[in-house]
């Protein structure tokens, strides 16, 4: 393990975060919250200085192999969240540090599950920082560093692999730095367009900005106690569309920008994703039509909730906990489904389900013809055995973590629906579950221990399990 190099990169993370913290400082000053602005600027300065001190020791070699890559990303995210939680406590809005950490991790991992009963009591600076952490975490802070500073050469692909989503992370263009730049350009483009569209639909600038951060990052922190419910229908439709766009594999946008339209529309994962959204929306609309005055309203709520859950955003316009059982079940299944790989969304990812589904068919086929040689294909390419194996192991680890977390948080003695959907919502970075943690509820009731378990789940879910698991393995920390 190349400790000095790992530390060096963590130093970078802290400094970048310090730079990001200047934005809530500005927001604080704009709204006359001088004390809160001061907290942010002090935290930023301390974080910057800390990064500087850590970076003093220059690494001898810049080699960063797979395990260093995974461990760096995991530690980097923990460090980033720990620093990001400080202002919440220091401003006094969230006095307990564990609660603040939960809120901060939930922000960076784009989960969006809160421990606050009423977010409207928070200052503008804190609200902005909460939402902005979604934007930072959505595409990933390591990808951001790679886009701007070429600090690691060829090995940086190991960091990108650990932070990006999906079973087989590839590059759009030959160079990591260019790939990272393209990803952030698309991300920024979506953000700016979304913000303008929201404002046209009638949101104020502050509301539009914070909401679009939560939307493109597929986070889900609202700045109102009732999330998106009180906004107009047009705003809700606009958010629905941008949530769906954010859950699409970014290589689609890349192909569109390169005018390779045929390639852009031939990705089977994206077709499945859009198909699932359409079918689920249709069923739920039919299922809940008695609850609302018109079909249009039912369709709007159904589409909003479906896209919010499948992209793992977690905004809500209706308390779906009150919906019929069929609708709730569909939403819970969508929680497991997740968005497309290579997007900012969390969850298991549709491509993994496709690979696993195809593996099942392959296995059945081999039972019929025991000597058959069959490869799994996707979009005209053979899926390598390595990817299939990694997907299977992912699924196994996923359920182990889920069951263990479920066991640990059931000590708090809440009902099964709350516990189960709570863990699922955390592990898939969605936010709201059902029961006490439903759209109108929050996670405040859990004990500190349960919150730490859930914090681990959120990080594991965002980093796709293995980076968080590898740092628990003692051999990872040995020099030899």
């Amino acid at each position, binding site marked *: 393990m190349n400790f000095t190099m790992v530390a060096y990169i963590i130093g970078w993370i802290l400094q970048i975060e310090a730079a990001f913290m200047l934005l809530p400082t500005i927001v604080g000053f704009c709204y006359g919250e001088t004390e809160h602005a001061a907290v942010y600027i002090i935290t930023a300065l301390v974080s910057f200085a800390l990064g500087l001190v850590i970076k003093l020791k220059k690494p001898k070699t810049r080699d960063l192999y797979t395990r260093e890559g995974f461990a760096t990303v995991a530690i980097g995210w923990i460090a980033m969240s720990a620093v990001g939680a400080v202002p919440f406590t220091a401003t006094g809005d969230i006095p307990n540090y564990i609660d603040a950490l939960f809120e901060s991790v939930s922000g960076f991992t784009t989960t969006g599950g809160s421990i606050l009963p009423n977010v409207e009591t928070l200052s503008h600076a804190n609200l902005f920082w909460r939402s902005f952490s979604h934007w930072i975490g959505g595409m990933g802070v390591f990808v951001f560093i790679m886009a701007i500073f070429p600090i690691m*050469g060829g*090995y940086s692909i190991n960091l990108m692999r650990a932070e990006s989503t999906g079973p087989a992370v*590839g590059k759009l263009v*030959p*160079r990591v*730095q260019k790939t990272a730049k393209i990803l952030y350009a698309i991300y920024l483009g979506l953000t700016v367009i979304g913000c303008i569209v929201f404002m046209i639909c009638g949101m104020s600038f502050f509301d539009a900005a914070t909401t679009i951060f939560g939307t493109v990052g597929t986070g889900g922190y609202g700045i109102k106690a009732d999330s998106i419910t009180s906004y107009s229908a047009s705003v809700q439709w606009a958010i629905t569309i941008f949530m769906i766009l954010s859950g699409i594999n970014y290589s689609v946008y890349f192909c569109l920008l390169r005018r390779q339209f045929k390639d852009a529309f031939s990705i089977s994962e994206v077709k499945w994703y859009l198909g699932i959204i359409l079918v689920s929306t249709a069923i739920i609309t039919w299922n809940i039509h008695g609850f609302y005055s018109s079909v249009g309203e039912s369709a709007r709520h159904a589409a909003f909730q479906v896209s919010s859950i499948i992209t793992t955003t977690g905004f809500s316009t209706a308390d779906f906990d009150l919906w019929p059982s069929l609708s709730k079940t569909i939403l819970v299944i969508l929680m497991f489904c997740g968005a497309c790989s290579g997007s900012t969304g969390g969850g298991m990812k549709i491509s993994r389900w496709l690979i696993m589904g195809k593996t099942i068919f392959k296995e059945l086929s081999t039972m019929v013809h025991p000597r058959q040689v069959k490869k799994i294909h996707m979009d005209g390419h053979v899926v*390598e055995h390595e990817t299939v194996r990694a997907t299977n192991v992912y699924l196994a680890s996923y359920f182990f973590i889920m069951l263990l977390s479920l066991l640990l948080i059931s000590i708090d003695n809440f009902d099964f629906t709350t516990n189960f959907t709570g863990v699922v919502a955390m592990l898939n970075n969605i936010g709201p579950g059902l029961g006490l943690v439903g759209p109108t509820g929050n996670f405040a009731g859990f004990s500190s221990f349960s919150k730490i378990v859930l914090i681990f789940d959120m990080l594991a879910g965002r980093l796709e399990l293995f980076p968080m698991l590898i740092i628990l393995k003692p051999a990872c920390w040995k020099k030899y």
Partner: protein
Amino acid sequence: MNIIIVGCGKVGHTLVEQLGGEQHDIVVVDLNPDKVHSITDELDAQGIVGNGVSYQTLQEAGIDRADLLIAVTASDEQNLLCCCIARQAGHCKTIARVRNPLYNEEISFLRDKLGLDLIINPELLTANEIARIFQFPSAVKIDTFSKGRLELIHFRVTKECLLNGLKLMNLKEVLGFNVLIPLVTRGDEVIIPRGDFSFEEGDVASVATTAKTASMFFRKIGFTSGRTRTAMLVGGGTISYYLAKRLLSAGINTKIIEIDDKVCSELSEKLPEATIICGDGTDERLLLQEGLESADGFVALTGLDEENILLALLARKLSNTKAVSKINRINFNSLLGDIKLDTTIFPRLLTANLILRYARSMNDSLGSNVENLYRLEDGKAEALEFYVKEPSGVTDTPLMQLSSKLKKDINICSITRGNQIIFPTGQDEIKVGDYVVIVMKHCGMTDIKDILK
């Protein structure tokens, strides 16, 4: 530039390493997924698993945007075909590796008719490099510039050598004439020596001279070895064949030791003047019997790197010969320096260097051209030859005034103007139309203006 490399073998890997370091966008193509992944995991390149001959695979690799395609798969035919298809599919320059001696005879026909830009034969390249060293057995390595008129000769400072313990500024007094030593390698370190630098035993010094001065210089500093008259080659592969042909035509008595009698009879058909011995080249008695002790040159060219290293060490121990060993695969450069091998030749690096030079010259700006490029000491330094096409900040200024504006660790070795070679002093200046040779510890320059701060 966008570069596609087809074939992820030894040369492919080296190329990605070196071209990637010069900020090119590289896509590698190979049929073997393991080989592709070993490159993309370690280096900043995109990998595509597929057959580089297929139009579709090339499309996927972005042939329509590529500036250069390099085909270095194991098969000559695949390389040629790949380049032909690439020519038709895109607008890129193409480089193919072709190693079969049969095709080598037709290389210019192939290049012109198939529209290739460069055909590389690593074996021929290696043989030429070895033959060049035999012209100056005291040298470890020789790099040539200005169409062979200027040489950068790297040699090891021995105990008896006059340079041992000498300060660079006293060199002129001792020799009686002026030579330029722009670079010294000590262990792993590369040094651009200044006046107060003093030489030590074991240093590899590089001297920039013309061939005529070189022999005078080496006689003066105490290297007595004269012309090579006899050479012994162990292993009868393609390199041996090319090398023997060169050596024989230079009038050197050449002996090839090869274990396979079929190969032996083939060689004897093709090389009637050479002495072909059928026997085990690792047999010490056989080597002695065939007169290793009195051979001027010894080249270990078997298929095994380890064997070649041991053979060269053995030859050095038993005789005073100039021993050369070819190393294909292993890459323990730091170790090879320690065991005091005389000269080691890496065909992989020779090939990569040639391609790199071509890529660099493609990348040229308008002001100057990269004519020659040698990577020294595993890429820690470079010797570059520029052709100056246009006036710029470096032209028409006396070097004395220029020196304060130069980057650190840069040495302007020579200026070739017409037929005249100038070893510049402070009063000389670079003019348009000159060929300028520069040795430096910076890498990746494409224009002579880059030497300025």
